[in-house]
């Protein structure tokens, strides 16, 4: 067993923090505002949707120190061991000079009521550090997780384009101090397990994946917390008790991505942002889909593993991964098993996972070279919205007829699910408008969607069918354009 440490340690702006008292469900935002009186970081929603609470978290990834924008409102304090938290208070120089991001916003009238502004500052800060001269598309993407009710965004976007004229990231303290901060963070990573609290009311940070397996053996009912973009809301919205909580976000081994010729294997802790960097090149439709999950803050925290493990019928990753024939490796103690992803989802709120078992890896096969693969998400608002209907199509046409079809939907049933009757209506038939029209009736066999605040059952059904029609047109070189998009979509 590894050493046990009874404090979490991290850097907050300039200062070292070591805390021996941390509640398992304590949020970074509350810590900043209530315990530290750092009130520049705001609460607008406490559910990861508005971005008013945006801070940067620096973590060591391999040899690098990377800074990412995250939502402090749903980021557990316990998950920050060995990290560098940077808040808006850190930006202004001691001589009172504003940071380039701040000055650009001021000069472009980027704030009105100002309540959203610190969050925008932090999101733009993260963007400018990785891309000092961003495209408009990159700016929009970086701001998907920030709501402003006053400005209509135009001045903020103008400021974002102009930041580079106010200074280069090379001159930024987070750049200059990189080596020193890395050394300080590395010194904190002593390979021990962190354990704080007593009895059930404990939080644990495993030393490594084996330690995680061991902890879960001992505490099979512990809440596994990866990116906390779901679990965070259980606490902030539903006041659910999550103790004992096991924070796995910092486990490097779970963040590994293995690229093979036939597919890609993701550690369960790979964030959307990290997955994007691989998927946008290898399976572009999945890259585009990830762009529409949450905002940058959520993508920096949230994991594919969590999206699957959570078992939601409207999680965006399961349908396309099912369509691709993906599988999962589950681990309990030292025992591992691999199952088809579609078999993992048993029913609403019920998955094939035993107490003490955790998702270790996700295997994503590449589409066949002659297959057409497409994923479309339909939601009320284009970005940072939960799916009303999502359709994923993996269809191989040979000699004019459908050789293989795997089609899966989200938002249409109690679980992410294949449209098996529709598949059957297609396979073996010519890939033609007639076949598609005839297959539409099979949707009524596969699905009985519900009505809720996101969409009516009628709309869900209609849109689900129309996605197949869109897929047909897209693969048969039919009517163009086929979609509306803010930026050109390469098909």
């Amino acid at each position, binding site marked *: 067993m590894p050493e046990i440490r009874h404090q979490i340690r991290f850097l907050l702006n300039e200062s070292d923090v070591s805390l021996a008292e941390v509640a398992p469900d304590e949020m970074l935002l*509350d810590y900043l505002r209530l315990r530290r*009186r750092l*009130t*520049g970081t705001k*609460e*607008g*929603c*406490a*559910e990861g949707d*508005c971005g*008013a609470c945006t801070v940067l978290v620096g973590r060591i990834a391999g040899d690098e120190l990377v800074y990412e924008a995250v939502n402090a409102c749903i980021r557990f304090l316990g998950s920050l061991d060995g990290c560098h938290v940077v*808040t*808006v*208070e850190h930006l202004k120089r001691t001589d009172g000079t*504003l940071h380039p991001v*701040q000055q650009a*916003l*001021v*000069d472009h*009238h*980027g*704030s*009105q*009521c*100002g*309540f*959203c*502004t*610190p969050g925008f500052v932090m999101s733009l800060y993260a963007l400018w550090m990785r891309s000092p001269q961003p495209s408009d598309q990159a*700016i929009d993407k970086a*701001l998907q997780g920030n709501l*402003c*009710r*006053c*400005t*209509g965004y*135009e*001045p*903020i*976007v103008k400021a974002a384009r102009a930041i580079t004229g106010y200074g280069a990231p090379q001159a930024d303290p987070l750049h200059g101090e990189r080596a020193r901060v890395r050394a300080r963070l590395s010194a904190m990573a002593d390979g021990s397990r962190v354990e704080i609290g007593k009895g059930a009311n404990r939080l644990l940070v495993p030393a490594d994946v084996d330690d995680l397996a061991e902890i879960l053996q001992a505490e099979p009912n512990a809440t596994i917390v990866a990116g906390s973009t779901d679990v965070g809301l259980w606490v902030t919205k539903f006041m659910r008790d999550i103790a004992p909580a096991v924070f796995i976000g910092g486990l490097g081994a779970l963040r590994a991505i293995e690229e093979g010729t036939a597919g890609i294997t993701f550690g369960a802790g790979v964030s959307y942002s990290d997955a994007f960097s691989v998927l946008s090149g290898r399976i572009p439709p999945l890259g585009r889909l990830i762009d529409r999950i949450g905002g940058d803050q959520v993508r920096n925290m949230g994991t594919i593993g969590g999206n699957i493990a959570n078992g939601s019928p409207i999680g965006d990753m399961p349908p396309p991964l099912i369509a691709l024939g993906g599988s999962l490796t589950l681990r309990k103690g030292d025992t591992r098993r691999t199952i088809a992803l579609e078999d993992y989802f048993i029913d609403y709120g019920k998955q094939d996972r035993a107490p003490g078992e955790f998702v270790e890896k996700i295997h994503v096969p590449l589409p066949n070279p002659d297959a057409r693969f497409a994923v479309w998400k*339909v939601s*009320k*608002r*284009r*970005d940072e919205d939960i799916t*009303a209907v999502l359709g994923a199509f993996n269809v191989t046409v040979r000699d004019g007829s459908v050789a293989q079809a795997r089609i899966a939907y989200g938002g249409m049933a109690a679980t992410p699910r294949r449209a098996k009757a529709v598949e059957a209506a297609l396979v073996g038939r010519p890939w033609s408008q007639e076949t598609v029209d005839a297959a539409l009736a099979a949707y009524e066999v596969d699905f009985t969607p519900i009505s809720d*605040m996101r*969409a*009516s059952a009628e*709309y869900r059904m209609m*849109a689900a069918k129309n*996605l197949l029609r*869109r897929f047909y*047109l897209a693969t048969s070189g039919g009517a*163009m*354009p*086929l*979609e*509306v998009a*803010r930026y050109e979509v390469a098909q």
Partner: protein
Amino acid sequence: MTRHEPLDLKKAEISGGVATDRRHDSAHKHVTGEAVYIDDMAEPAGTLHAYLGLSTVAHGIIKSMDLGAVAAAPGVVAVLTHEDVPGTNDISPAGLDDEPIFAPDKVQFLGQPVFAVVAETREQARRACSLARIEYEDLPALIDIAEAGEDARLVTKPLTLQRGSVGPALQAAPRRISGRMRVGGQDHFYLEGQIAFAMPGEDQDVTVHSSTQHPSEVQHMVAHALGAPSHAVTVEVRRMGGGFGGKETQANLFAAVAAIAAKKTGRPVKIRPDRDDDMTATGKRHDFLIDYDVGFDEEGRILGVDFTYSARCGFSADLSGPVTDRALFHCDNTYYYPSVRAISRPLYTNTVSNTAFRGFGGPQGMLGAERIIDEVAFALGRDPLEIRKRNLYGETDRNVTPYHQTVEDSEAARVIEELEISAGYADRRREIAEFNERSPIVKRGIALTPVKFGISFTATHFNQAGALVHVYTDGSIHLNHGGTEMGQGLYVKVAQIVAEEFQVDIEQVKITATTTGKVPNTSATAASSGSDLNGMAAQNAARQIKDRLIDFATGQYEVPKEQIEFLPGRVRVGNQEIPFAELVRQAYMARIQLSAAGFYKTPKIHWNRDKGKGRPFYYFAYGAACSEVSVDTLTGEYVVERTDILHETGRSLNRAIDIGQIEGGFIQGMGWLTTEELVWDDKGRLRTHAPSTYKIPLASDRPKIFNVELADWGENREKTVHRSKAVGEPPFMLAMSVLHALSDAVASVAGHKICPRLDAPATPERVLMAVERLRAEG
């Protein structure tokens, strides 16, 4: 300013005067996080936190209430119910006694406050709330106004506007169409939620920091609730993190609860609901059903219109009377109706009591006008813009509104004409038609819609304002007025006006928090009136002091008045120039009063509601927008390709601030008409009560191309402050162009022969359903 700073006696211009693009006074504090909102204020030792316990049924009698477990929960110091209200358990802004702080025996909507918990921490208070056991006896609940019968209960007196005889006009009209439009409500989604922080003082005193647009009303409500005179209550607000009308009356509840708790416990008490409770328990923009019957001729000239505007008001009147009135005042938008009748139906429902929201009923009113334009255009196979232009108010005739005010300043024709050219409307309309020919799935649409918005509170007595200006002996100036700052830039505009009067740099003018202790009996910062009213009051105060300085200088230097002039940073007295601060110091030595209370009331306006006649508006603000959209006819998804706006601001006090109001207002309006959908289930539970389910626009929803121009060719014909025009609300309605562009795109699937009757919000779902209907009928 320090004494030693060298003075530039040749300065040609002050910094930050009127008509400069001064940035928001708090911009540098916004970006650093140093701007203090109420939740950021240092908490005195012993501060407690309150949280509201909300009802869980839409309509019911409280059979029993067991708060034992709540009181026994960790950290709980007090539990409050209606029995703990020392004064009157009512915060009805309409004075109708229909809005309890805590529901006494009956709840009337799901989410109504029933009790409050006061605890050492907010978390403790919040958790304790969930331990309450309340049993209700369910009563029948009316949630959806479509289900309201003819004799349905109203929350306040309805209004009828009438001119000409509409019945005969409709009967005689060559063409006639009737229909119904559903218009959704809107949550304010101010980024800073509701909050109040009360500090008990001696005697009956209490000071409340409230995130409110209406400190005087909060003061009255708190006094009322405490059973104390108004003088015991001081309400202060430095800034809000957004208001949009949502903090005009809705802050009353939180302030009252904090104050009651503070007086009861003798400790400071803060209350801040979380976002879900904020959205569930506070009022929103009214949703409407608009029934219309329009008669017109073959040329598209409207001959008569009969409108009924039914509104979901919720369980109490709140501001529903004036909101539904204003809907009727805007049922004409920029169009002349030879005969018209418009009736309001402010309906009682078992939902949260709806309230003010930017535009205050005006937007819903105008949508009715624009819908009938669409109906006429599609019926005749004409471009809706042609129908719009055909029906505009005339200059000398055809210029009387349904409320019998003459439109003296119609700028609509000019605004439309200039925008039509600058946006390339005609060419683009042709190109779009060609595109649609070629493109079976994605369809484009374009629309150009005007706005005419009446400026003034329709309750005439609200059109007054006060200000307080002190000049200190070092020449620095303290400015205070009754207006509140919610991001709209009111503080900086008023400071510009004062700097301009004294000809001092704006840096010399200290903007101070709005407080009932300095300027009393103020009106809400609402109805776009903030700078019109408070700017004038501050100017008046400054002028009083200036006059005294001039009088003093005349005597002291023995020069005639005409030879005294305020120049940048200095005053010319005869043939010498004296630094401003020096003159002020001399005046002080001569015992001249250097402080003044300013006052202003809007002239000319009057309104007789019973007769439906008068001049409720001092003037109108005009604008127009042209939007183009692309619609995916397979899913109903869309993007706004381009928007061009031309909006009139008179002689703008600050173009940068005004453009910010226009851009922000437009996007907010676009959200209302597109993705912002409020959904109540049949139990009366609001299902869209947080940003995860309620979708306001993101940066990536703004038009791909967005051109905003100020029509600054003119100055206000009326004597407003520096001849500027109000700009807070009018641009909101420019977003109608997006709804109508969507309608145009949808109409293309049936050759523009059927009116899509696209209701709002036009979510992708509604757009797809309209496409399907037109395809089926077309």
